């Protein structure tokens, strides 16, 4: 996977806050800060992994980048165009360039729609192909993701989870996008099928020069598939590094704990595990200062009052921590 240093998508201080309503008048009482100030450059041809525990805002980040959620604050620059305030009509040509693969292959397909029709839909909206050409293209897509031509007429319930995820992938690449957000595309699948889908994603990337934003909680899959990895905690950036640096030299205490917590499929080797105290704090009422200080093993007084700066400690390796 060759990554040239050309920025495809630039995300600047993006925030997404969801209002929490309550009381008789349903007034806004609070905000859930799902994504709270993310600044990123996504390079052409790379796979950028976004990892973190549930509730850290990684999925919301993916959805916000695609314009599926409105921005609370910040800027989105795609291929040099600032698209943050575009109307939906202005956005249409950009939507063609950005697609998404969803987590749950059971929920993301319409049970009453034939597979052929589901794949054709994006072609109707975004291209001027005739119905014959569209059919041709759909058959080619089915072939490309490892399905058969006779699957054109079938309904989603006739497919297994792995096959449905292949359909989801075919739908995402149908209009030749350059950028795909994969939101936990393999978490709902069994391990043997999971490996098949990972392989497919990799082959397609090579063939079409795709750029992926790969949202996942599975650090093994991320190491296998990604070039760079962003670790998020409570909507904020914790560490960003090229994949080998992050796994061999994790610097933020949260990244360290996350990596040490993964159960390894090897026996006999007892590793020292960093135990984190307690649970993830509520994102509607995040701790002051460093968001991680309540669970951090090396937290000092400073961490609870002052927000750590985002700084580069090595080439391409960024962290937000006072102590490291």
């Amino acid at each position, binding site marked *: 996977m060759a990554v040239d240093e050309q920025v495809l998508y630039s995300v600047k201080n993006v925030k997404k806050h969801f209002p929490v309503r309550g009381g008789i008048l349903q007034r806004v009482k609070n905000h859930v800060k799902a994504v709270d100030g993310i600044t990123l450059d996504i390079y052409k041809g790379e796979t950028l992994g976004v990892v973190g525990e549930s509730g850290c805002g990684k999925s919301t980040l993916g959805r916000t980048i695609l314009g599926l959620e409105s921005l609370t604050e910040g800027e989105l620059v795609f291929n040099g165009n600032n698209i943050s305030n575009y109307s939906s009509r202005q956005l249409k040509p950009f939507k063609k360039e950005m697609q998404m693969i969803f987590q749950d292959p059971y929920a993301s397909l319409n049970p009453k729609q034939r597979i052929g029709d589901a794949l054709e839909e994006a072609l109707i909206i975004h291209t001027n192909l005739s119905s014959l050409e569209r059919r041709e293209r759909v058959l080619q897509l089915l072939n490309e993701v490892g399905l058969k031509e006779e699957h054109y007429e079938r309904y989603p319930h006739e497919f297994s989870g792995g096959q449905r995820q292949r359909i989801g992938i075919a739908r995402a690449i149908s209009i030749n996008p350059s950028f795909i957000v994969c939101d936990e595309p393999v978490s709902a699948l069994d391990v043997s099928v999971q490996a098949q889908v990972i392989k497919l994603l990799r082959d397609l990337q090579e063939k079409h020069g795709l750029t992926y934003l790969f949202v996942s909680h599975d650090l093994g899959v991320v190491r*296998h598939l990604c070039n760079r990895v962003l670790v998020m905690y409570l909507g904020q950036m914790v560490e960003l590094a090229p994949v080998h640096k992050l796994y061999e030299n994790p610097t933020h205490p949260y990244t360290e704990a996350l*990596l040490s917590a993964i159960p390894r499929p090897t026996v006999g080797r007892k590793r020292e595990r960093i135990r984190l105290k307690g*649970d993830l704090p509520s994102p509607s009422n995040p701790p002051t200062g460093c968001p991680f200080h309540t669970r951090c093993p090396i937290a000092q007084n400073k961490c609870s009052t002052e927000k750590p700066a985002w700084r580069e400690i090595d080439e391409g390796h960024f962290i937000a921590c006072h102590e490291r």
Partner: protein
Amino acid sequence: MKETVLEVKDLVTTFKSADGPLPAVRGASFSVKKGETLCIVGESGCGKSITALSIMGLLPSNGMIADGSIFFNQKNLAEMSPKQMQKVRGNDVSMIFQEPMTALNPVFTVGFQIREPLMIHLKLSKKQAHMRGIELLKMVGIPSPVERMNQFPHELSGGMRQRVMIAIALSCNPSLLIADEPTTALDVTIQAQIIDLLNDLKEQLDMSMIMITHDMGVVAEIADRVIVMYAGEIIEEGRVEEIYENPQHPYTKGLLASVPNVDDPEFDLKPIVGSMPMLNEQISGCRFHPRCPFAFDKCMEKSPETFQVTDKQNVRCWLQEEGVEQNGGRRASSL
């Protein structure tokens, strides 16, 4: 040699359907010794959860144990009436489920649900049960247990709920604990906490445990012995070191090769082709042969026998038979 707590023999569990009975478990035999952790691994639909539910007597109404026996402390659980099972369940054998939110009742407090088994099985008074409940919550590492007793499940986080489930399951000092994917719904840092807790408690209380999971990493952390299931059958069984360091069945090898290794960037991911067969699919011979890279003629005709590799490791695969060319033909091409 430690005494055997549970002995399952030729268990067949079927489900009623319009096309006749569908076998979900096809003749599983295994045993669990005192103080031992047995892991059952396999992908969804392999029958691992149904095996557990058969032991617990919790099969859905369209499922039944068609054949075989389940001996627990010299009593055959497979022949017990539902009433007799109630006395065993939650008392001698208890179970933890995957999703703690659906396993706990949302309209009762944690205290009510933890007192219930204590009052039924141990005949404690409400007050005694309450005190014991607080002790149990403390044992599973829940902070401020006195206040937690009056809270409802929705007020707790996922990890806390799973701890409450464990406290309830352990309330009557069971000699066997069955854990069905207890950490699958949890985040890795919380998962690590729960695995440590289960390991500690098992040691402390000297109970046996059956852990059902699909995560090969979790198995390596917790198991003494491992059973690998595929399409309703046990295809390999052995000590955890044997399974990881010297797997014999092609499916076990495939399973280990399809988990990306976090510590090794050069790890070569090798998916198993195809997918798990449906329950009603008729497969002649070995049920894995359509997906097996080493399958030869005999595999398609005859169901494999069980071959012994070491004193603890058994494999159901024709490749183990003497005289089969181990390095020839299709075998060399992969794995």
